[in-house]
């Protein structure tokens, strides 16, 4: 299989002129500023839809980072990794260990998380990237499953097995000095990072992550990655060694995952092996595809949509549903409840699966492709009127 053939419509950015022309450069910066403002004001504009509480907006930001990182690999080079959750888990473990051994300050924890994700990705990527196509997918999956199984069994001294790694009273925390009563909470140079302040840490990280991804996409390096996606053989024939580039992309996306993992530990200082399971890897694939792979904003959107609906849908139960449909006549209302009921609550994954299939079948470019199609049609309608 040539890795080139993944969803051509998702490649909008490849078709538009991206050599740092000043016009597109300015447009990028405007978009970036809007993005940053939107992320920072999330607690305000999300409150009408009932999503403005710290736990959820933190998740949006964290999974957004994870998905942006995944997209740097999948969206730009076309290599479909099914083992990205391993880096997320490693980042979490590294961060929690930093909390346990060094300090409750989050800066070292995040640094260690990124570092651990990067080193781990370097090891796995070095081996996996020798193959491409489905072999690459299976290799990454194999490595992630290995890490997951080991975290549960032999590595229990490091990972604390099924219980998960947690803070404890006896932790040394050499930089913090003696702790008071109760477990300390994470902080940024003295400012506690729980609740909304935790969210703002994640939000700033997300904005920086987005900016970095933007720079990578627009750089010659990003061009090279997209060239690899569209035809790796041709790149090789022109005497271009693609391996270092794909490996760099893999490591960068591993570092993003490590950062996301460490942020999970920042907002809630524990780490468990289930974060490394392959279903978690599948989730980030879903997010990226749903939003639109190969686009900058798509993965963040996808992460937000999935986490939002996961939260909303799983909260529905029979009572909520019957209240929702009680404006209908009695028989019809009950029928609607029966119809909708399998898709909400515990059945949320069913909705996700159906949605995902529909997206892959009809809109391989994800939400972003849908938006641009609608926008294109509007523009045509308008130009018809004026012209």
């Amino acid at each position, binding site marked *: *299989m*040539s*890795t080139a*053939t*993944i*969803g051509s419509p998702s490649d909008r950015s490849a078709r538009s002129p991206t050599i740092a022309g000043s016009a597109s450069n300015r447009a990028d910066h405007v978009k970036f500023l809007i993005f940053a403002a939107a992320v920072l004001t999330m607690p305000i504009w999300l409150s009408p839809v009932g999503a403005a509480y710290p736990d959820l907006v933190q998740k949006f930001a964290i999974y957004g980072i994870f998905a942006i990182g995944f997209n740097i690999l999948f969206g730009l080079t*076309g290599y*479909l990794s099914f083992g990205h959750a391993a880096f997320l888990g490693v980042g979490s473990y590294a961060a929690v260990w930093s909390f346990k051994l060094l300090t409750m300050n989050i800066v070292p924890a995040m640094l260690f998380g990124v570092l651990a994700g990067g080193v781990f990705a370097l090891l796995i990527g070095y*081996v996996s990237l*020798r*193959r*491409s*196509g*489905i*072999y*690459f*997918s*299976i*290799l990454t*999956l*194999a*490595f992630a*499953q*290995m890490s997951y*199984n*080991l975290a*549960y*069994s*032999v*590595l229990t001294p490091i990972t604390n097995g099924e219980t998960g790694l947690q803070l404890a009273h006896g932790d040394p925390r050499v930089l913090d000095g003696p702790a008071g009563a109760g477990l300390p909470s994470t902080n940024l140079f003295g400012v506690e990072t729980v609740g909304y302040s935790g969210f703002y840490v994640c939000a700033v990280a997300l904005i920086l992550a987005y900016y970095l991804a933007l720079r990578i996409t627009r750089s010659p390096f990003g061009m090279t990655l997209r060239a690899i996606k569209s035809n790796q053989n041709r790149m090789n024939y022109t005497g271009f060694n693609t391996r270092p580039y794909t490996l760099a992309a893999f490591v960068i996306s591993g570092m993003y995952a490590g950062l996301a993992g460490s942020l999970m530990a920042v907002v809630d200082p524990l780490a468990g092996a289930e974060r490394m399971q*392959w*279903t978690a890897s*599948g989730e980030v*694939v879903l997010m990226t*595809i749903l939003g639109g792979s190969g686009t900058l904003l798509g993965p963040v959107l996808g992460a937000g949509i999935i986490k939002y609906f996961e939260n909303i849908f799983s909260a529905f139960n029979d009572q909520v549903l019957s209240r929702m449909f009680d404006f209908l006549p009695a028989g019809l209302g009950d029928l609607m409840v029966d119809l909708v009921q*399998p898709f909400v609550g*515990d*059945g949320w*994954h*069913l909705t*996700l*699966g*159906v949605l*995902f*299939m529909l997206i*892959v*079948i009809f809109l*391989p470019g994800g939400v972003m492709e849908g938006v641009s199609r609608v926008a294109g049609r509007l523009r045509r309608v308008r130009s018809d009127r004026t012209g």
Partner: protein
Amino acid sequence: MDAVVLQALNGLDKGGAYALIALGLTLIFGTLGVVNFAHGALFMLGAFCAVTMQKLLTLSQKVEDTSVTFFKAYKEVPYLEIWFGDTGAALIDFAVPLAIVLTIPVMLVVGLVMERGLIQYFYKRSHAEQILVTFGLAIVIQEIIKSAFGANPIPTPAPEAVAGSADIGAWLGVGQGLIYPYWRLIYLAFSLAIIAAVFAFLRFTTFGMVVRAGMQDRETVGLLGIDVQRRFTIVFGIAAVVAGLAGMMYTPILPPDYHMGMDFLVLSFVVVVVGGMGSLEGAVLAGFLLGILQSFASMNEVKAIIPGIDQIIVYLVAVVVLQVRPRGLFGRRGVMEG
């Protein structure tokens, strides 16, 4: 010695399941060129055919329990026992093997519907998209089963007659203590029989010959005026049946739950890749090989030397094989070359 034989046998029945799933995956891949991530879900559907059969056979009526005299007590008595007495009870006892009459038609229909309804639109799309859409389908099937049967494993025992263990040690004359459940032996024999049947079908029938020719060069066979597509669709149905039967017979070994398919799928993909994409013999041999390796790695003596090896052996083998023989053990040139 006993332990070695026992572990080999232990590995063989699990290997049988891997081999059957991997065989179906390879058939689908070789004919249609589609990577089917929903194949584990088909395995799981087969297992739930056995569950459904058991439920159907034990449909019950409330009957007054005359053995309790202090108060009125009721017990559930299956209709079959009421109607046919002991014959009925025997039928219920053989629910799992009897489920074969349900599994084959159900899986055939599921396979054909899946191919015509979804897979055929994905021939020309990239492998990544095939993986993604079948992955989505697997989630959907899994969740439907979950909402119909619940999330807990459902015990489906083997028939009473073969519920015990065989004294293999005595048969082979290597001493006592080597006992092994009958059902696992049956599973091994069953999977070998199915594998043999599939190979015989492909090798000795005209239909199979056309299919093999189509796998080699679809275009030429089509130009000879043969409807390759229809045959390949049927092959998809057959692969679905094979996976379903594998799942159905596995239920007494592992009580089925809705995510058993995913667990097997990941391993089966590793099996396919180790065996060599597109090679049927490779899929079968790698299935048994990895099954046996897995069971040897879980011996205490081995674990004492390399702790944790039982958890990772399959993946480790896959990594090593792909590095040393990139096309897998039996892979051919030109299949799935990246």
